[in-house]
């Protein structure tokens, strides 16, 4: 019996989006993210060659090796992923950038670059695989570790955590979301929406480290997350207005948001009415969720996209890295004029 393989609009199978076999710990939250990334991009029908993967150092940053084998990737330096992405984004701006980082990579050593890559609006999806600890170096505190967290060899963490969504917000990100490795459905929709955004989109994924920080009461554990997750909205992604089957949504309970590439997300109201386009509401949500330890996930903030870093330069439509040499060297006459001006 022949097994039929499902193909996307490019005629590619999910297998075409796979990476090398993961060498992360079985059950690691990061593996769930890898899976959703490949699924999301496959479903979007984006060719793997149209994506590049940039990461720092950490278990999280190793993970791009485990998806999208046909995409270019660069596993760079600890904390410097945003800088690498900034430079690479000019090579061929038709290529979507996935920046993959960890909480150590982003919130500790990489904090400055994180803020600035957002401020510069480098068009990319910036995913933080946030496990509240350093996995690869075997379980030290990171800057998102919960206050009071106890880790072997480390004792008690006395410092309050930084909130990376808040950081992204006040640096000017036009797309900020939080999700959870235990909620893969939501995660996938958010990834799709983020990819459809044209500016920088930041997704803070709470992604448990099953080896070093998964005690039931730990803020970044599966159990805590499963028990406390409070999605602020239901979220469904549609590639186009035509795909949207709004009849499935009850009148007045949802809100549609058009993304810059013509795709849509439909946000379904859950408890109270949350307006993801209101910056102050987003800030309030985050301060509250920290104060009362509740775990708000979903699309926290969305706004019109400010000019991307490429839009600030008047660049050719063709990829810069394909310009032939003759288009890069000014004329002999121009040099003559310079020589004259310097006499």
């Amino acid at each position: 019996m022949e097994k039929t393989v499902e193909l996307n609009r490019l005629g590619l199978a999910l297998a075409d989006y796979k990476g090398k076999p993961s060498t992360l710990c079985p059950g690691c939250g990061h593996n769930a993210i890898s899976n959703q990334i490949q699924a999301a991009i496959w479903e979007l029908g984006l060719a793997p060659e149209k994506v590049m993967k940039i990461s720092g150092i950490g278990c999280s940053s190793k993970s791009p090796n485990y998806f999208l084998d046909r995409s270019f990737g660069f596993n760079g330096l600890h904390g410097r992923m945003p800088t690498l992405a900034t430079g690479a984004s000019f090579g061929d701006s038709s290529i979507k950038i996935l920046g993959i980082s960890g909480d150590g990579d982003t919130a500790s050593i990489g904090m400055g670059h994180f803020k600035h890559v957002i401020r510069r609006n480098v068009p990319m999806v910036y995913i933080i695989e946030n496990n509240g600890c350093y996995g690869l170096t075997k379980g030290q505190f990171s800057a998102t570790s919960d206050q009071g967290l106890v880790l072997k060899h480390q004792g008690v963490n006395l410092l309050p955590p930084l909130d990376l969504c808040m950081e992204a917000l006040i640096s000017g990100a036009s797309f900020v979301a939080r999700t959870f490795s235990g909620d893969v459905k939501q995660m996938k929709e958010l990834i799709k929406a983020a990819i459809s955004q044209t500016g920088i989109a930041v997704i803070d994924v709470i992604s448990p480290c099953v080896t070093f920080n998964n005690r039931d009461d730990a803020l970044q554990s599966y159990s805590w997350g499963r028990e406390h997750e409070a999605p602020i909205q239901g979220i469904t992604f549609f590639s186009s207005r035509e795909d949207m089957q709004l009849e499935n949504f009850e009148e007045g309970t949802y809100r549609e948001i058009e993304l810059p590439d013509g795709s849509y997300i439909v946000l379904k109201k859950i408890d109270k009415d949350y307006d993801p386009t209101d910056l102050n509401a987003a800030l309030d949500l985050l301060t509250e969720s920290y104060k009362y330890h509740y775990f708000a996930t979903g699309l926290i903030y969305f706004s019109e996209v400010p000019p991307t870093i490429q839009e600030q330069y008047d660049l050719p439509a063709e990829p810069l890295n394909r310009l032939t040499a003759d288009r890069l060297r000014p004329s002999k006459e121009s040099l003559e004029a310079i020589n004259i001006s310097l006499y």
Partner: protein
Amino acid sequence: MLDTTQDSVQGNEQIVNEVCMTICTVNGSGSATANNILYRALFRMGILTSGKNIFPSNIKGLPTWFVIRASARGYTGRVEYDDMVVAMNPATIQKDVSYLRNGGVLFYADHLEKPEITDKEVIIYPMPIKTLMKQVDAPRNLQSYMENMLYVGIVGQVLRIPEEILKATIEHQFRSKPAVAESNFNIVKLGFQYALENIEKTDRYYLQQLPELRDYILTDGNNAAALGSLYGGLQFCAWYPITPATSLVESAIDHVGKLRKDPKTGKNTCVILQVEDELAAAGAALGAGWAGLRAMTSTSGPGISLMTENIGLAYFTETPMVIWDVQRVGPSTGLPTRTAQGDLSMLYTLGHGDTKHVILIPGTVTECFEFGWRSLDIAEKNQTPIFVLSDLDLGMNSWVTKRFEYPNQPIERGKIIWEEQLEQIKDWGRYKDLDGDGIPYRTVVGNMSKKAAYFARGTGHDEYGNYSEDPKNWSDMLNRIGAKLDGVVKDLPGPIIRRAKADADIGIIGMGSTHDAMIEAQDILAEMGIQADYMRVRSLPANTDVREFIASHARNYVVELNRDGQLRQILSLEISEYSEKLISISEIGGLPLPAAWTAESVFAKEKHNGKNC
């Protein structure tokens, strides 16, 4: 032995086109324009001249000096005594005159306290700056600026610079603003006229017009480097401000709009991006280089320190990029506005683990232009970071230099391959040495071939870029990279050698901005009776010409502006069989190399070596 403190009083014939003058002003008072006008005027008269700005790490208020040296023989090295001092700064006037030779000339603004001079004869020309200013309708904020314009006229007249040369120079300076040119010229004329009518010339320094220096231009190394890079097809420059490297990128910003519009679409083909720090600058240049852009960054010592980790990554991932290091005095923050050659050792092996980098060392402003484009070629061809080592003296001072020459080679992109070429390679791997030259073929993002992608990483990898901890993989990879870089030597500019007039037993070796001073030192040595061949090293690793030069001299004096004799160290490592032939002479005060001091140092060591000279 040459007496550098020799009097210039004796005799009474005119001294023509041979004068060293220091103009002493206050930082931020706008003296730069005045000084440059004087400087260019000499150049326009056809006189080979140098102009060096010695300024504080300060924005306004501290003393600053501008040294103009005219030399009939074309020498431009720093001399340690002045023939002329133009004193405009009350805080330093007493000290400033102490550098005057016996028989020297002092111009001073007569509202300053007249300095006491007891140890020598000095011809003094007071300048009634404040009185003359009464005739000028100057807005308050331009007061001190215009006072400076006055000395241009006075000094110019006394030196016999033709009025029309001053006029032409001012017009050049303000070429886009004729009205400003005119008002400036009027002030200069006021000074000129005053001198003409009131100053009786008793000194012997005269400037005389020579044939125009039409093969020369007047500009600084940073501007040249910026232009060279733009003509080299630079596509991406990430940077962070730091003295004395800032003006390199700021020059590029000034030029890029005009020079780098795509002929096809009229769009920009070069991006210049200020980032948050030097870690980001190096990281972004690396990212752009990896993505197939001709990329660079420009910085100085502290920035290099911060780029260390990224450069190691570029080396090991074989990513092309160019790093300009416009040196200032270190270690640490050091003297940000003074010159040195102290970063060489650090650059050569920058990064933890085994690394060894290619360094280009321009010695003239024209070479800054040339190495600007060449470095991008060498980086892409060899897939490695390339350093270009300049310094504050070369980079920020204006030099009379040869006109820029249009690149004589097409842009070299190296082994970047696109879809079609890739199809033709059977078993391509990003790090596979298919040609036996150690240089693999590389693909870049956007290549749509299914097999083009690879995962770059700073960790151990095999020929396909896959993660590997295998010992043999690791050592093969690192050894290939080492061998590849041995091969770069053939692409590098070899040394410049200037032979002595007669057979020379000894060599003198220098690098970079000391070039002019070294030539002068060579000539002074000859006058002292010591024949020395001179070699300027223009790149590392050194090639066989360097080796032969060293081998063929009994003693080689390596002259450099750092404490530890860094070039000597590297040469004695590379050419260790002759290491005993290499003798260090070094200077670290932060000022350009003085030629006479250099000659004397060699002379003293030769004498000490028991040589008769």
